[in-house]
């Protein structure tokens, strides 16, 4: 991921060191690739099969990952719950994507999160570490230390000017977001954009200092995944993000290159807090759309539906 570096920070030398690294990552508003006759892929089925089918429908992982590239996967593995609780991304989804990346020739895949609960316990109890064990080149990491983050500027940020982002994300060529669909007591829902908060250091200021919805839109502008694959095989429809709460089973995997579009569709997969909402009603998704980061008009989108 290439991010503009901040100007005149107290970490001059770090910046210089980071600048010395060569990033070769063309990041723009990476919407649907040329030649696609659809904006989103929505696959119904079991986690592993649906994920595979979604990747196939998008044209295979080779479209996103080229030989020798470094890939970061960002699942939600912030909680110490098994997948049936609906608080973390299904391990089969993560493992399927990780394997596909390696098969596409990736140099390595780093599965990364900054968890809310004790790191080791999250890796173990979410099942993600086990699922990825034995896939050569795949590393599952839950990091809680500031030393693994590096400063980055937020271009055109409304409330955020600079962020500290995982060094591995800054040095990777491909970022794939693997959010879990769930409710969230502050932001309404936690889908792709909200999931990106697990890649930055100072997330508490989102709650205490900033308007969190605007801050999330800034974050979505700064960190643009090349692919977002929303795990809505299960959806925690209330008491999110940590649960325990009501878990429904929409049995869906939603994938696309437009992060806002994926989230916009995700709003409709389940009733949140017992009520149905439209994407435009979710403040942070609307804010991201208004920054020109992606489409929100689910009704107008071309959607390729499949069953795995």
């Amino acid at each position: 991921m290439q991010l503009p570096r901040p100007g005149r920070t107290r970490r001059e030398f770090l910046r210089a060191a980071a600048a010395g690294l060569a990033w070769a990552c063309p990041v723009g508003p990476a919407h649907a690739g040329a030649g696609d006759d659809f904006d989103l892929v929505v696959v119904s089925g079991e986690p592993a099969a649906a994920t595979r089918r979604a990747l196939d429908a998008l044209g295979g992982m080779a479209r996103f990952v080229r030989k020798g590239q470094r890939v970061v996967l960002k699942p939600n593995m912030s909680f110490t719950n098994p997948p049936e609780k609906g608080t973390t991304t299904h391990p089969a989804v993560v493992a399927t994507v990780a394997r596909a990346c390696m098969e596409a020739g990736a140099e390595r895949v780093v599965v990364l999160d900054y968890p809310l609960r004790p790191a080791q316990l999250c890796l173990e109890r979410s099942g993600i570490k086990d699922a990825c064990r034995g896939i050569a080149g795949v590393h599952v990491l839950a990091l809680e230390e500031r030393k693994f983050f590096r400063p980055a500027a937020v271009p055109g940020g409304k409330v955020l000017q600079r962020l500290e982002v995982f060094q591995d994300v800054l040095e990777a060529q491909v970022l794939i977001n693997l959010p879990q669909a769930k409710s969230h007591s502050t932001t309404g829902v936690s889908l792709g954009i909200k999931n990106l908060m697990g890649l930055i250091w100072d997330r508490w200021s989102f709650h205490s200092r900033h308007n969190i919805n605007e801050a999330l839109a800034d974050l979505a502008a700064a960190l643009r995944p090349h692919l977002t694959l929303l795990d809505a095989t299960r959806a925690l429809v209330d008491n999110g993000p940590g649960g325990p709460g009501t878990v429904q089973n929409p049995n869906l995997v939603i994938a696309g290159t437009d992060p806002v579009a994926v989230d916009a569709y995700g709003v409709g997969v389940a009733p949140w807090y017992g009520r149905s909402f439209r994407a435009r009603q979710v403040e942070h998704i609307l804010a991201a759309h208004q920054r020109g980061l992606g489409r929100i008009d689910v009704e107008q989108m071309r959607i390729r539906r499949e069953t795995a």
Partner: protein
Amino acid sequence: MRRAAQTLSLFLFSLLFVLATYTLPAWLPADAYLRLDPLLGLSALLAGKAVIPRVLWALVLVGATLIVGRFFCGYVCPLGAALDFLDVFFRHRPRPGMRREAALRQVKYGLLALCLAAALAGLSLAYLLDPLALLTRFYAFVLYPLAITLLNLALDVLRPALRAAGWIGLAHLHYPQPVFYMTVVTFLVFAGIIALNRLAPRFWCRYLCPLGALLSFLSPLGLFRRRVDARGCNACLECRQACPMGAAGEDPERTHVAECIQCRTCAEACPTGAIGFPAFAAAGNAPWRAGEYAAPEVSRRGFVAAAAGGLAAAFLADRTPFAALQDKRQLIRPPGAIPEAEFLRTCIRCGECMKACLTNTLQPSLWQSGLAGLWTPRMEPRFAPCEQHCNVCGRVCPTQAIRTLPLEEKTHAKVGTAVLRRERCLVWAEDKLCLICDEICPYNAIVFRAVEGYRRPVVIASRCNGCGYCEQRCPVQGESAIVVAPQGAIRLGDGSYIEEAKKLQLEFVPDPGDDRFHLEQPPGSAGERGGPGGRAMPGGPQPAKPKGFL
């Protein structure tokens, strides 16, 4: 041979200590050394007035000492080993030697009498002086944090190289740094014990160690005895010089058998090879000279004085405002801690629970519950919470002052209740948007109620387990706006926490409907606790939307 045994034992002790983490397999007793310690066991038994199955392990050491003699101190005791190994710092300088050797030797018996008398009267004191508790404490509060610091330092130095080499796992390796109160105090106690070697080798073991004193009482029955072959002895007194325990008598042919740890240093030092350690049956026969001092040598006056001192200490310790306020001013103890009075008597302050604690919330107390609570574990939720899926503290507790609980039971072992302090809360006091306590609560004990047109957090006490996640994460500077108070803590000496929680009508299993109900309350309805019947009143005002939605 002895060095090898000591090295092995110290290694095993260290290994078990390192393994005391939440991943500890159920079959592995990480606290094995502490369980084997008859002094800690006896003290906990006398003070707690209850038989603790786990301390019966100590019978193994008692039996072995009865059979073999006081070998533990010379071959097994990890503190003894540490003292021997660290003696290199003192060996090269002449030591003054102790003038009143015989009197000093009695001090440990006095300390033993003091500890046991105090225990009998309900005050746990043995932990202060027991070598295994002492060393475990030093490991937990000094050595372990230091080792992690050095390990991380090394990793940080290597990190750029590891990263360049593409060793991703290693390049991201970092061990959470444990920190503890009382590190300095613990260090000073240990350093003092080591420094005493300047005066005499194994000063601690010779004169002070109450565990050694206890084993001395058993050792005269032991199988192997130091014996001198009178024909070979030239009375050069080399053995007396060499003995680290002062067990070789003033008359070299005689032995203070209670002091002898069978280290055989004397046999090595003897220029004529006249010293042996024959088995009991042979010991009476020629050529060995039967020569033993009465064992152990304790003056009645000293013993009585020490015992009286112990009793007095125990009575005084119980007559302080701390004891009187025990019920009101309880600390937040780890889940599964037995009732406070019994807890203070049974806990041996080894620090094993605090070392093993996954989140580092368990911290040693200084004065928080008086002298009787020195080094006892308490939770510090502002610093770190108690993790729902971890129960290691009870599993490694050698005296079961913290009970070993299955996870399901542990979840019901309520340690306190979160109390929301509205005057500090960002939402209550400043109308800000903050829901961190709700977001993090693993038990769903925090709900939002519409009060004065605003959704505000409220604690449902019956669901709160007291884990402290809310207190730790509260973004208010300084003291948290939501604090865990010992209110409602369940402390059971035996029986099921699940049953008790049921009796108290506590529900740690969430009711998923609750948040929805409160969300749908119209703003301005002043937050009264309506029943479920009040849900979605037809014809009522339009319900407010959940947060985050427009």
